[in-house]
């Protein structure tokens, strides 16, 4: 008897999200599935709803209707969304959003508050993660002393602090020069090669989207079926 297949990492079922009392349809009946350990890029023009979708998966906002399941569990009615965000999700923003008065290693450490780890354990883990993103030598520097690419790598280390199964990145290369952006994408590739992790990346840059296993094209709050970008990416892999 064969083992049952694992549930999808992310499953959206007919999800809508309206703003301004229903005047703005940010998401309009979106259904999609992301397999475990898959790297999916959400692409599309500004305002198409891709960031909104990412925020819903991160439980930073709730849908107007529809269901969002992560690793088979419905986010609606999940008792502790703080714990979900802390332990199952790693978030990377377009702007690094690091705390400016903390050092790189402290920025990573604070993501582990409330996990039950002791100070020494948190520090060791933060150093290990900074080593993984090639910033071991820069751990004592504060964000203003780091380059844009380095800050984003610290933010990625922070996102990985609690070993999430899901990495959600909202335009992570949007504020970086091309060289730093390539470095971040390379880091994502290496991450995927080294550990099981599902990546959902939002971008409007086709070149960044092309780095993913699969591209989901969005427009006007809907998924565009069979869009060229999706087929290109699928063909590449």
């Amino acid at each position, binding site marked *: 008897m064969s083992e049952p297949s694992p549930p999808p990492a992310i499953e959206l079922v007919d999800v809508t999200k309206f703003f301004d009392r229903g005047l703005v349809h940010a998401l309009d009946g979106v259904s999609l599935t992301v397999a475990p350990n898959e790297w999916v890029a959400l692409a599309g023009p500004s305002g198409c709803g891709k960031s909104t979708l990412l925020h819903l998966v991160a439980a930073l906002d709730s849908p107007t209707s529809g269901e969002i399941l992560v690793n088979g569990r419905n986010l609606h009615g999940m008792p502790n969304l703080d714990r979900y*965000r802390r332990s199952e999700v790693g978030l990377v*923003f377009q702007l690094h959003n690091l705390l400016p008065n903390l050092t790189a290693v402290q920025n990573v450490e604070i*993501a582990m508050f409330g996990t039950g780890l002791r100070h020494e354990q948190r520090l060791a883990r933060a150093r290990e993660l900074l080593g993984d993103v090639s910033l071991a030598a820069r751990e004592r520097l504060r964000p203003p002393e780091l380059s844009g690419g380095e800050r984003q790598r610290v933010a990625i280390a922070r996102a990985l602090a609690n070993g999430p199964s899901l990495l959600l990145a909202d335009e992570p290369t949007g504020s970086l020069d091309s060289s730093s952006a390539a470095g971040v994408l390379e880091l994502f590739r290496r991450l995927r090669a080294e550990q099981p992790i599902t990546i959902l990346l939002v971008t409007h840059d086709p070149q960044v989207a092309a780095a993913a296993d699969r591209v989901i094209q969005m427009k006007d709050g809907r998924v565009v079926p069979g869009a060229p970008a999706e087929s290109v990416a699928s063909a590449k892999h």
Partner: protein
Amino acid sequence: MYFASLIVLNVVSRKVRSILTAVAVAISIMTVVTMGVLTHSLRQSAIAVLRTGTADFSIAQEDVSDVIYSSIDERSVTELRSYSGVESVVGVLVAPFRLDEDHPFFLQLGVPPQELEAFGVHVVEGRAYEASAPDEAMLGFRAAREFNKHVGDHMLLDGDDFQIVGIYSTGQVFGDSAAMMPLVTLQARERKPGTATLAFVRTTPGTDIQALRNRIEQDYPELATVRTESDFGRVDRNLELLSAANTGVSGLALIIGAVTVLNMMVLTVFERTREFGVLRAIGWSRARVLFDVMGEALVVALSGAALGVAAGFVAIRFLEDTPTLRGLFYPDYTTDVFLRALLITFGMAGFGALYPAARAALLKPLTAIRHE
């Protein structure tokens, strides 16, 4: 990094604001400590007068502004001696005068020599004065030390020359810093014949003291008996007013401190809105955000309180040297005063930070992240 270190770091990173808030808290706490020590010390000084000697309780005129102005008819003192359960009643006249700039409140106590023992006075050097000697006095050992007077020396007391015939001890700072002379002598000098300021009652073993006090107060409605500190307000309205002012000052300090902390924390939370959004997005709970803000307020308030207590000590030293209080005010630093200051500090931090902390904790992460 520890959570507490993060809180301290946040305080330090906003130096000017934190320092200004801490200074405001310090001023409030300094006022609380100074007023607290002043009130308590003055109260203790006044109570010390009532407790001079070994009496079980004292009697004074009820509802006078200051216990020093109490007036008891000596005939009442005599009558009280016949009460069942009374071992002795000593009528004492208390008369303060300005000795010099450094001693603006020097006490003269008029006590009949035959009642010195019953009053709890021990002659430690020389002898007691004669009952009707118009120019003999004794000095408390503290006063003798202060003025470098010895048995046989002379001293001017309120314009009259007295020979110091003995040095005494009562076990009370106030009594030991005074001069003592025959009751009739002091009554004559003060033009208060047949009058005592206070009466000190010693009871026989097994006496129901409370019942005796009740009876005395029933028979002499103009008099009040004082046994405990809480009774004291009945015979000294000034100190009661000072105590009420002290309570009022504490309340005001709490309000001023809390508003200052509130102002600082509202600004801080507004500035850190985006940061709180990020922290909530990476998994911080509402409670952790709440503790972060409350902790920051507490660190600032406690720093200010430490500064305030230190400033309070300096202020008390200053008051101690104030001519009008010299000799009347012996600082008594009780834990009560500091506990009250600590409680007020926690109150300032708690009330001041509650609203901003709740506001920070209830922020929607996404809205907060988008905050400019």
